[in-house]
Each structure stands twice: as structure tokens, then as C-alpha cells.
């Protein structure tokens, strides 16, 4: 028999060999069945022996051998059935044994002996123990790894249903045992022996053949692993193995075999196998032994996966039991045990890669969360340990895409996801430290993850300490960092980040106004250091929150006699905040914020209201005059200033007058004439519906000043606009203004003035070049005319107007 298996034959060659063998098996099986049908047992056995002879081959790969094995053992079923029949008819066992010995080679002989032994046990169960013992021993005759593994697998499969499964009992020893032929202990001994032998064969495969074939050998070993594992499965199926037996007999033997075989492939597979096949309650009671064995495994065994598999399984089991309202029978401090064990393992393996360490911490945290969801300090402990380890390894600036980085991100995200309340992070002292190990992009990514979680859960950050803490955690988004990359970030990404931060700021809110003020101050402090690129996104939310706070003080003024001073202080705070934006060389945004502020102030009658409102308006004006140079922007800005002033009624004459006048002046100084005309027209509203203290909060309705504005607008349009299209358009707009004020009751706007303008328009319109623009102007005029007609038919505002 060749000793070196020629595993190198290429796949086609394998197929050919397999087909040949299968052919022989088929033919011999046919002959065997024919003989058995005719009652010629001896001849039948000869054929059986021949077909079994195919299993003597060394030429087949494990996969091919397996196929052959399946075909052969299939055929052996027939023989088994025949023999059971024979035996029940009265044929003697010894005769059968006798006959089977004639098989020439050991492989066929052993297969036949097993088959016979199986038959024997089926028909005389009381002899189980002895027969099983014999069979497991005699298999030692085949020491070739591949053939031996399959032979012993055959033994295991055959005995699947006939292993004694009754408890050992003190009394009635004789009678029970004699009826079942043994107890569960005998089965245990049988399977353990088979397991040990199979493992030895399996390990031996590692060292066969040339070193250059090692990789392929290892792969073939992996293909065969389930043959060995089936022994453990068989043990797990024996119902009479109770916890005590498991602890005393079963597990120690298995672990001894696993540890002593000193083979990494076997150890890795078998340890995981143990976890999979035996119940969780058993694992809970044997943790120490199991973990001790883990520490004794070969250096290149992936212990991390084994531990993680165990932790995850037990965590799930604990959670499931709790969910079903059950109680864990043992008093185990699972977390402490695993925490210590993980530490031991890490220490005993100096080469363990850092990502594996973190992966272990991840599973520990999951354990803590599943089994002890309210013990936040467990989570903190894990984080602390990880920080320690990182310090020891001098790790820093870990990138998110590195293996360690990925595990670290996972670790940091778990508490966020589990509690769904970012405020719990306050209780985790080590969280911030651990976060700092990530590189810039990693810290930012985690900051955004935190913010998104807070926004989704609408988590309110309700006091200054919490605000301080949270903003500290996400400081990578708020301020420039030492390890920030030098190149400018993508503007769209940057805007997205900062907008997210802006949205987050609205969660910083307290019911108590005084506390809210402190919160805004804390936020301002953090955000103010963000630099000119960030504050346009982050300071406006603070300002608007402050405006709302001022109003809140006003609404509860009866409960707080200091409310007026507080309002003043808040607006000073806003003034400073908006000025920071001005210093960052922005103009339009602070202008609009000042205007909004003026509106806010105008609604809160606190002491110094007028002064502060005036200050805000004049700041807006300064920005307009000094910083806004684009003519389109200027028109938009002055229009906004006028529109805002029109709404504010808290100014006395000595303030309202200069403001109105400056608006009109600014309007008349715009660069483009049409803009001037329009802006001056808009100013007219200040003199009509504008309110002041002097007018007692009522509309001013200064008829003359309104008319002056409109006349001025008209004059600019008529005399200073060169483009006739624009001119006519302005005429129509101003006509509408005339009509507007006439309808509101301005007596100075006489019908004659209106008619004059109407005539002018009618005169100029036909002269315009016929295009889309002139058609629009024409439509505008027609609509205006229709408006006059329809109003005139109901009321007499438009009396005497001729269209």
C-alpha cells in the first residue's frame, strides 16, 4: 500500500479515478445483492469485500473520497438489512464474525466488522457496551489519516441510534444495565475515544507530504473538519449527559485533547464547535475551565473569534432569558469574568494585533449592554481599559479606515446606539479620552454621528454643564484642530457639516430662562472660537435663540422683577455676537440679523428699549453704507431696512425722524436711476403706515411727505431714465402707488394727478418696441385699469379717475 498519497492529481484526473471506482462499486454491489437474494452469504460477502476495497485508495482527494464513501456505505445498507434478517432467523453471531474475517485487507474487514457489530447490537442490545468497546478499539488498525477518519465516521454514523442513553444508577445495576447493555457513561467513553483518535489522525495530516503543499493540505483538512466535529455533536445529543457529567467527565476530556494536540487548525475549530453544540447553561457553568483552556492554545489560534463567539452567545442567552421573564440560575458576574479573562488573554499574547483587542472590547461592551443595561459603569470600565491599552501601545491619530480604527468607531458608536440618549455619555468618564485617539476625520465622523442621534431622538441638552460637555465632545466640528489637514475642505461638505452643527444648537434648551441664558453663553464661548468660516453657520442660531429668550423673559415679567435688565443684557449679547460676524468680513448676514433684532426689540417694552432698537437700526445702516457696494445688493438692503422700519413703532420723533430721513436719502443716492425711483417710492410707506411714539402707535399718515416721495420717484423716472421701456414700466408702478394711497385715503393725491399719469402712459406705450417686455408692461397697465374700474363700481376711492 503506497504511503505517500498522491494528492497532486489534477481535477480531471480525480474525476476519472472517481468514476472508475464508482463503476466498480456499482458492479460489485449488483453482484452482492444477487448473491444475497439467492441466500449465498459467503459469496455476497466476497463481493462486499471487493467493493469496500475501493476505499483502500490513496489517489483520491478528500472531496472525491467522500463521494466514493457515500456510494459504498449506501450499498452496505443492503448488507446490513440482510444480516439483521438472517440473525433474527437464528444464524449465530460467531458464524458471521468467522465469515467476515476472510476479507483480505484491513479496510474492508473493518467496515464489515462494524456492520456486523451494528447488527449484533440491534438484535441483542444487552451486549452494546462490549461490542462498542471492541469496535472503537479495532479501528486503530487503520492509521492512514484519510481512510481512518472516514472509517471512524462510519462507526459513528452506524451507532447513531443505538448508543445507550440511560443514567448510571446506584441500585438495580444489574437489571437495568442488562436490558440496555450499558449506560450513558459507556456511550461517553465510546465517543470520547473515537473523538480522540480521529483528532490525532486529523492532526497527523498536517505533517504529511512536502512543505510546499502545506497550503493545499490545510485546505483539505478544513474540508474534513466536520468529520471530527460530529463526535461532539453526538455527545450533545445524549440526553442523559447532565450538567454534572458535563463538568466532571465530558468537557475535561475534550479540552485535554484539544489543548494537548497542539494543532492550531484543530484547536480553533474544536473550541468553536464546543460553543456551538452544547447548551448555554453548560457554558455558563464551565466558563473558567473553558477560558483557561483558551489561554493554553497555540499562539497562532484566533482566540479572539472564540471568545467573541462565546460572549455573544451568552449575552444573547442572558437577554433572551430575561425577556422571557426567567432567571439565570447561576450567580455569575459574567462581565467581571470575561473582563478579566480578556485582559489575561491580551497579556499572554504580546503579538495580538490592536484591532483584535478592540474587537474583544466591542463584544464586552455588547455583553454589558445586553446583560446589565443599567450598569453604565461597566461600559465605562471597558472604555477605560481600551484607553489604557492604546496608551500602552502609543497609538494615536487612528484613521477610520484602518482595522483598528474600524473597531474603535464600532466601539464608540455602541453606547450612542444603545442608550439613544447622548446625555448618557456624560456618565462615561473615559469616552472623551478614547474619542481623542481617532484622527481628525474619525473624530468628525463620530461627532456627526452623535449629533444625528441627538436630532433623531430630539434629545434636549438642558443645562450649561451638559452643553459644555457635549460641545467639548464634538469640538472637532467647532474649532480648528491641531491635526487638521492643511488643505481647505470641500465647500459643500463643509457647509453640510456646519449646517448639521447649526441644527444641533437648537437642542440646547432649558425651560428655565436664567439657565437658558447660561446655556447660550456657554455655546457662544465654544462657537466663537470656530473661526471666520464656521461662525456664519453657527452664530445665527445662537442669536435667534437669544431673541426668543428675551421675549420669554417679557412673557413671564410678573415673576421676575429683573426682567428688564436681563432683556437689555441679552440684546447686548446679541449685539456682540452679530458684531463678531461683521469682524469676519460679512455684511449682508449681520445686517439682516440686526434688522431682525430691531423687530424683536420693538415688541418688548423694556427700559431703554428705544435706545437699543435705535442702536440696532443704526448698525444695520452702517453696514449698508460701509460694506455693501453691489448695486443690486444695495437696493435689496435698503428695501429691507425700509420695510423693517415701517413695522417698528417704538421710536420717538427724535429717533424716527433721522431714521426716515436717512432711508429717503439713501434711496435717492442709489447708483441706478430706476433703483432710485423705486426705492424712493418704497419710502413713501414710512410716511403713511409707519408708526412712532409721537403718533401714539397709530399710522403717521403724513399725506404731504407721501406725495413728495411719489412725485420725486416720478420725476426721476420721467427726467433721468433714458431707457423708454424702463420709464414706462416705472410709470405704471408709480401709478399703482398713487392708486394704493388714494384707496387708503390720502386726500392730497388728487384725481388730476392720476389722470395726468394715465395719459402719459397711454401716450408712451404704443411707442415701445413690440416684444415680451413691452407686452408685460402693457398687461400690467391693463390690469391696473381693470382694477380701477372694478373698485370704482363699488366704492368712490377712485372717483373722477379717467382710464
Amino acid at each position: 500500500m503506497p504511503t505517500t498519497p498522491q494528492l497532486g492529481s489534477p481535477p480531471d484526473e480525480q474525476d476519472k479515478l472517481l468514476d472508475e471506482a464508482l463503476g466498480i462499486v456499482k458492479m460489485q454491489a449488483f453482484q452482492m445483492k444477487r448473491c444475497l437474494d439467492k441466500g449465498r452469504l459467503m459469496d455476497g460477502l466476497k463481493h462486499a469485500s471487493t467493493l469496500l476495497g475501493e476505499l483502500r485508495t490513496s489517489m483520491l482527494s478528500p472531496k472525491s473520497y467522500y463521494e466514493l464513501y457515500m456510494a459504498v456505505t449506501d450499498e452496505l445498507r443492503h448488507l446490513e438489512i440482510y444480516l439483521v434478517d438472517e440473525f433474527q432467523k437464528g444464524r449465530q453471531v460467531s458464524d458471521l464474525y468467522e465469515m467476515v474475517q476472510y476479507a483480505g485487507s484491513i479496510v474492508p474487514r473493518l467496515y464489515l466488522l462494524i456492520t456486523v457489530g451494528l447488527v449484533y447490537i440491534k438484535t441483542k442490545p444487552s451486549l452494546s457496551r462490549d461490542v462498542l468497546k471492541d469496535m472503537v478499539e479495532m479501528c486503530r488498525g487503520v492509521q492512514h489519516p484519510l481512510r481512518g477518519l472516514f472509517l471512524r465516521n462510519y462507526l459513528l454514523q452506524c451507532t447513531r441510534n443505538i448508543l445507550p442513553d440511560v443514567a448510571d444508577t446506584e441500585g438495580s445495576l444489574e437489571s437495568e444495565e442488562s436490558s440496555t447493555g450499558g449506560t450513558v457513561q459507556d456511550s461517553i467513553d465510546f465517543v470520547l475515544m473515537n473523538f480522540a483518535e480521529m483528532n490525532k489522525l486529523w492532526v497527523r495530516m498536517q505533517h504529511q507530504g512536502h512543505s510546499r503543499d502545506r497550503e493545499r493540505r490545510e485546505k483539505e483538512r478544513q474540508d474534513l473538519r466536520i468529520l471530527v466535529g460530529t463526535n461532539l455533536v453526538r455527545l450533545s445529543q445524549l440526553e442523559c449527559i447532565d450538567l454534572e457529567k458535563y463538568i466532571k467527565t465530558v468537557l475535561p476530556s475534550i479540552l485535554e485533547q484539544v489543548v494537548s494536540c497542539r494543532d492550531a487548525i484543530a484547536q480553533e475549530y474544536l473550541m468553536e464547535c464546543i460553543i456551538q453544540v452544547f447548551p448555554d447553561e453548560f457554558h455558563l457553568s464551565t466558563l473558567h475551565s473553558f477560558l483557561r483552556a483558551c489561554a493554553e492554545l497555540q499562539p497562532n489560534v484566533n482566540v479572539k473569534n472564540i471568545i467573541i463567539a462565546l460572549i455573544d452567545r451568552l449575552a444573547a442567552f442572558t437577554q433572551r432569558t430575561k425577556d422571557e421573564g426567567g432567571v439565570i440560575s447561576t450567580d455569575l458576574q459574567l462581565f467581571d469574568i470575561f473582563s478579566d479573562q480578556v485582559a489575561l488573554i491580551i497579556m499572554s499574547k504580546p503579538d495580538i494585533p490592536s484591532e483584535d483587542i478592540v474587537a474583544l472590547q466591542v463584544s464586552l461592551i455588547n455583553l454589558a449592554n445586553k446583560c446589565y443595561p443599567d450598569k453604565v459603569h461597566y461600559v465605562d470600565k471597558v472604555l477605560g481599559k481600551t484607553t489604557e491599552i492604546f496608551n500602552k501601545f502609543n497609538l494615536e491619530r487612528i484613521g477610520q479606515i484602518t482595522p483598528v480604527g474600524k473597531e474603535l468607531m464600532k466601539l464608540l458608536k455602541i453606547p450612542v446606539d444603545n442608550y439613544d440618549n447622548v446625555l448618557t455619555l456624560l456618565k462615561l468618564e473615559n469616552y472623551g479620552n478614547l474619542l481623542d485617539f481617532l484622527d481628525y476625520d474619525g473624530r468628525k465622523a463620530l461627532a456627526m454621528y452623535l449629533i444625528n442621534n441627538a436630532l433623531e431622538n430630539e434629545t434636549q441638552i438642558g443645562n450649561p454643564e451638559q452643553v459644555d460637555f457635549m460641545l467639548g465632545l464634538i469640538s472637532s466640528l467647532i474649532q480648528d484642530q491641531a491635526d487638521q489637514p492643511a488643505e481647505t475642505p470641500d465647500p459643500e461638505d463643509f457647509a453640510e457639516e456646519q449646517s448639521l452643527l447649526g441644527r444641533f444648537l437648537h437642542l440646547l434648551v432649558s425651560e428655565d430662562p436664567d439657565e437658558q441664558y447660561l446655556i447660550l453663553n456657554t455655546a457662544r464661548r465654544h462657537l466663537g472660537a470656530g473661526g471666520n468660516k464656521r461662525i456664519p453657520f453657527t452664530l445665527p442660531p445662537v442669536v435667534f435663540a437669544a431673541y426668543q429668550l428675551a421675549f420669554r423673559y417679557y412673557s413671564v415679567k410678573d415673576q421676575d422683577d429683573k426682567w428688564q435688565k436681563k432683556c437689555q443684557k441679552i440684546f447686548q449679547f446679541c449685539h456682540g455676537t452679530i458684531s463678531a460676524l461683521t469682524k469676519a468680513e460679512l455684511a449682508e448676514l449681520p445686517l439682516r440679523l440686526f434688522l431682525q433684532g430691531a423687530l424683536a426689540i420693538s415688541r418688548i417694552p423694556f427700559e431703554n428699549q428705544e435706545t437699543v432698537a435705535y442702536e440696532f437700526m443704526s448698525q444695520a445702516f452702517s453696514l449698508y453704507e460701509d460694506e455693501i457696494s453691489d448695486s443690486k445688493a444695495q437696493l435689496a438692503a435698503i428695501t429691507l431696512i425700509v420695510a423693517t422700519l415701517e413695522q417698528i413703532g417704538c421710536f420717538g420723533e427724535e429717533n424716527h425722524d433721522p431714521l426716515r430721513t436717512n432711508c429717503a436719502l439713501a434711496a435717492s443716492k442709489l447708483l441706478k436711476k430706476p433703483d432710485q425711483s423705486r426705492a424712493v417710492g418704497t419710502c413713501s410707506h414710512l410716511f403713511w403706515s409707519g408708526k412712532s411714539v409721537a403718533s401714539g402707535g397709530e399710522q403717521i399718515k403724513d399725506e404731504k411727505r407721501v406725495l413728495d416721495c411719489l412725485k420725486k420717484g416720478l420725476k426721476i423716472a420721467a427726467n433721468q431714465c433714458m431707457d423708454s421701456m424702463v420709464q414706462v414700466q416705472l410709470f405704471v408702478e408709480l401709478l399703482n402707488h398713487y392708486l394704493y394711497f388714494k384707496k387708503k385715503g390720502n386726500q392730497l393725491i388728487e384725481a388730476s394727478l392720476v389722470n395726468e399719469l394715465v395719459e402719459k402712459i397711454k401716450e408712451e406705450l404704443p411707442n415701445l418696441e413690440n416684444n415680451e417686455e413691452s407686452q408685460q408692461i402693457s398687461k400690467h397697465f391693463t390690469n391696473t385699469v381693470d382694477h380701477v374700474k372694478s373698485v370704482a363700481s363699488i366704492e368712490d376711492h377712485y372717483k373722477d379717475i379717467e382710464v
Partner: protein
Amino acid sequence: MLVLVLGDLHIPHRVASLPAKFRKLLSPGRIQHILCTGNLCTRESYDYLKTVAADVHVVRGDFDDNLLYPEQKVVTVGQFRIGLCHGHQIVPWGDPDALAMVQRQLDVDILITGHTHKFEAYEHESKFYINPGSATGAYNPLENRVIPSFVLMDIQSSTVVTYVYQLIDSEVKVERIEYKKS
């Protein structure tokens, strides 16, 4: 033909996000057009609107960061010419006669404006005026209590049925107003 009308979201300046109950109502695929009065204020809100309907029209509000949105827009839906303008440019803010001046200039049947954060829907001299309010209930110094609201127009030939959705005490309330083109 369903047209969503909304605006003055003010995200992130004044508010964190659209109310969850509103988000649930605005599922993609049911709405053909969106008319937005402005003050989104950022790209994110615009992108969100694009997921609700493909055809989105936005006009510029005083706090929008995108300078390319137009000041005014006119779109035709069914038989209606609809004008869209934020409204901070129209003095006095919210004044029906001032709004009517813009209606005449744009020559529209329906004028949609925002800025006041207050829902309006009324007829004035046979034309229809809609203000969808603020979809997020954002702060407005001139409004003591801003109720989150938006409008859905169902346009069928010469009739438009306007549904206003308001979030009052955490419940969504709907009202119906009809306008026929004369």
C-alpha cells in the same frame, strides 16, 4: 394635479428640522410640483424637497444662502398663472393692497407669498392669495405664536381646492378652501 406650497423653513438658523408628522405626510411620488416661498435656508432642505417631487420652484428669501434663486417667478399649472415671491420685498409686509400691486404686475391668478409665518388664503378682487406660513413653525419676531403649516393645492381645470395643514398641539389639522377662476 397636486402642488405643494411651503416655505420659511429657516433650517438651521431658527429650527432643527421639519416636524416629524409633516415629514410623514410628504411621501414622494404623490406630488407633481413644489412651490417654495423661500428661506429654506440651505442646500439640504432643497435636496429634501427634490426627493418629494421632481419639479421644485424656489424664490429667494432674505436669509437664503443661494444667491441664484430668482426674486419672483411665474408658473402655469392647468389653467392658472401662479406668481411666487417671498414677500420681504413687498412693503408693507402682508398688506393685501400691496400684494395686489404685485399680482397686477405679474398678471397672475394666484399670488403666493410668505415671510410673515402666518397662514393666509383669501380672495381679493377676484384673485386668490395664499401664504403657506412656516412649515417648521420658525420664530418670527412679529408673531407671538407661530403654528407650523403648509398648503396643498389640488388644481383641476379652472378650480383649485386648497388644503391647509397645520400642526396644532402636536396634532395635524386640515382645512379646505375652494377658489374658482372667474
